[in-house]
Each structure stands twice: as C-alpha cells, then as structure tokens.
C-alpha cells in the first residue's frame, strides 16, 4: 500500500515492524491523549487506556483542538510518541507538533496520509512497516 508523506520523521528513516493501533472513532489529541503518560484518555474511545508510544497510530477522524500540536510535542519530548502517525486528511495542527519536534532535535514521528477507507483494510494489532517514501507493508499472520 502507498501512503502519502506529509511530514518526514526525525531521523528520516524507515519505520520497521510497529504494531498498528487503529482509531476508528474521532479523537482530539488535546483531551484525548495524556501528554504525561501517552495513553488514550478519551473515555468514549474503545482504545481507552491504551498507550500510543512506538505504535503506528492510524487515525480515521482527527478532531482538531489547536493545542493538539502541544500534546504531540510533549509526547515527542518524553519519548512517548507513536513511531508513525497516519491520518485520513491533512492536518496542520498535528503536523506542527512533529515539525517543531524536529527543530528541537528530538526524535519525531513521520506523519503520513491514508484515506480512512483504506485504513479499514488494516487490522488492529497487525505489525506494519512504513518506508520513509511511504510504502506500507502489513506483515502476514501478524495478528
């Protein structure tokens, strides 16, 4: 599968074998993910209490609080950020968290785009690799 690169990671390298977390319900980073421990705090999410660190986090509908960039930057700073973030549509607010993380010299996740319908082909918990140019591979038998 091909995903669009919105923001390259820091360092700009391939993401190897990360567990996919599929968020199929709308989520806002501010109020939805704890900046201090990196778990999903939105009580309406069926992924409530799940950590996002080192995952390939697929988000089918992002609710955009303008403080979302601060939450992602804090996750980056604490080493609790996802390995990669895959969004349904362009979002400058979340992208900013990663762009600023890179400016600060911190390890920052790449942000990719994949329409929600295609995200639906990936099973929650599957192991995925995403190359820095946007080639996504779902490893067989991984879930």
């Amino acid at each position, binding site marked *: 599968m091909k995903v669009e690169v919105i923001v390259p990671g820091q360092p700009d390298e391939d993401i190897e074998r990360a567990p996919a977390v599929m968020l199929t319900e709308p989520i806002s980073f501010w109020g939805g993910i704890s900046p201090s421990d990196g778990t999903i705090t939105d009580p309406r999410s069926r992924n409530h209490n799940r950590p996002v660190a080192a995952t390939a986090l697929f988000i089918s509908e992002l609710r955009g609080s*303008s403080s979302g960039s601060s939450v992602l930057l804090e996750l980056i700073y604490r080493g609790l950020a996802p390995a990669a973030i895959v969004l349904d549509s362009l979002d400058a607010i979340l992208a900013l968290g990663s762009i600023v993380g890179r400016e600060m010299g911190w390890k920052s996740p790449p942000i990719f785009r994949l329409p929600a319908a295609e995200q639906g082909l990936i099973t929650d918990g599957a192991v995925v690799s995403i190359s820095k140019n946007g080639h996504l591979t779902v490893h067989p038998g991984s879930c």
Partner: protein
Amino acid sequence: MKCVDLDGYERGLLDGAAGEAAALAMRVIVETARVLGATSLVEIRSAHIDGCLYHGDSGTLFAERLVGLGAQVAVPTTLNVGALDLLHGGIVRLEPAARKMAHRLMAAYIAMGARQTWTCAPYQAGHRPAAGEDVAWGESNAVAFCNSVLGARTNRYGDFLDICAAITGRAPKSGLHLPRNRFATVLVDATAVPDSFWRDDIAFPILGAWLGRAVGQRIAAIEGIGRPTEDQLKALGAAAASSGSVGLFHVIGVTPEASTRSAAFGDVAPQDTIRLDLTALTRARAGLSTVNRSAGEAIDAVAIGSPHLSTDELCALDRLVGRRHCSKPLYACTGRHALAGLPQGLMQSLNDRGVVVIVDTCVVVTPVLPPGSGVLVTNSGKFAHYAPQNTGYDVVFATLVECVESAVRGSLYLTPNGAHEG
C-alpha cells in the same frame, strides 16, 4: 507536494538575514505551508498567541529556544491565558515544578515582546484588527470572533505556528485568508424560534453549542436571531468553536461579511438549509449539562467567564450579587483589561462578597476548583464543554441569574417558570 513561492524578504529570513530565531520560525511557517498545500505566504498585521498555556515542559523549552536565539515579534502580538494568575498568587494549585515551568513559559513570551494581555478575549482588550486584514490568531473563540464579528482573516492557528507567524510576520496563504473560502454554505433559518428566546443571554451559548454540532467545520449564515450584542456574539462563537470546529460564522444583517443573504453566500444558493426550532435548542441546552439536578439540590461551585468577562459583564454580576454574600465560591474569570474599566474599589468589593475574581487564566485550563469532583454551575457553553474532561466536575448549565442565585444560596436555584418565558 507543491513548492512554496517566497519573495526576497521571506527568503532572506529563511537564510538568516534577521537572525537564527527568525530563520527557525520561517522554516516552521514554510513547512506548514507545504503541508497545507499553500503556494505562497500572506503578510499578517497582528498575532494572538495561544502557545503561552503550559501543557508540559516541551512548550517552555521551545519558547526559551526562540528567546535564546534572539526572537522578537514583528507585529503587534497579544497573549492568551497562561496557567497562572500572575496578579493573585495562591489561586492556582499547580505543583511547584509545573508552576515554575508555566511561569518560565509566560516569561519567555513576554521576553519576545508580546503584550501581557493574558486573555482569551483580546478583541475586548484593544486588539481589534480591521475588516479584511490578515492576522494570525490562536484560541478557538478568539479566532471565531476575529473572523466573524471583526471580519479580519485568520485560520485556526495551532500552538507554535502562532508565535512563528508573529516573529516572521507571515502565515501560509490558505483557508480563511482567501476571500473565496469565506462564504457561507449552510443557511440556518431561525425565524421559527420565538423572539422571546433571544432576550436571554443564555440563548447564545445554546445556539453556539447547537451550531457547532450541526455544521462542524462548514460556514453557516444565521438568519432570524435579531441583533445580538457583542458579548452575545462572543458567547455564540465560543460555544460553536468548542462543540464543532467553527472558525467563521455569519449573522445576516449583523456581521460585516453578511450585510445581506447574498453577500454571505457570494451570490450563490446555500448548499444546505437547516430550519432551527425551539425543540432543537431545548435539546442542545439539555446537552450542556452532564447531570440532572433539581432546584434546591447541592452544588459545589459556580464559574462564569469563558470567554473572559467584559467590564459590562462584571458590572452585571455586581448588580445581581447586590449586597449579599456567596456561600459557594463564584469564580469570575476575566482579563486585566476588564478590571481596568471597573469603578474604583469594585473588584475588592466583589471579592468581599465571595466572588473569586481570576485574571490571566481560567478554571478549565489550570487547577483552581476545589480538589476532587463535584457539581459546577455555569452559563458558559465553553466551560460546559471542557469542565467535565479537564476538571472532573459535573456541569449544570444555567442562566447568569441562576448562577448567581445558586452561589448565594449554596444550592441550585432554577428560575421557576423556565428561563425563556416571555
């Protein structure tokens, strides 16, 4: 992705002509422009910064990096709330390490030359861009007011982009900076709602809460709500921006880009028409409370002032409290600008009557409410939206009169015949 065309000045900033801080800020602006698909930048005339609220140490380190590189804002810049009330120590219960970092964050933004307004209502603190002017504002209610009521042009800028725009004087030319993207697409026809409904202030946060859910990010033009005051439009925009992602709305015959219906829609027909009635508004009102409480039941606190109270709203509060004393804390969140407009001694007198006047911050962004949980009464659509998740309190949404009476009596007061009778 497309390339971003830069002029000589912009390329100079990127190359370090105005120092390292401006170069960093320009890299962030250009990279964001690329993400947004903008092919050029727009010159902005002012900025309002939301990034001064503490969410964790990383924000402080970024602001201090900018200061260390010599950053100064290039345009008039106001500051949104921080996590501390700098005038009244003791009100905010942040633990010492976080308090220190929150304070360092606020100090960094002052060092970059921003005005110490510390308010989510900068438009009532003298920061009023002209209609048609391009600006870069953060804070969802401020963005909605700036676009809708002032007719100035901004997108909903996230933390970090706001300060980078202030330092460079540039923002990505996209979204609501482009006149073609500012027309309404949805007509909200409120003519079926009885006029008496709009007489009460609480009508406007209820309308806002409904609007955000009904239209999301689409631009609505509303017809048939009379001529709301500035404070009523402020409450409408704040509620709509928190329940949806509304960055711009029009009120036909009232707001600057909607002198007529066809002006609001750019001479094309609405893509969608929603006929609003009292049933939908009653449902929206019920949705603003998280618990069902009857008159006389216990409450724990009352909070008003999101967006920050204007001088007029503080005076109205003073009249309603009268010579009585609040038996439960009534938190009144406001800005230094509104206090400056009050008659001499009024703020002290409010405090003496049990009103806790809070400036520079507010009760849903930093720990102020008594620890634990409880029932909070508010007339603010924005407080009602954020208080449950940010404070752990349940919310009862009520009119200003009901808020004040509840604080004075120490138990929930509800207007006997309902808030909207004639």
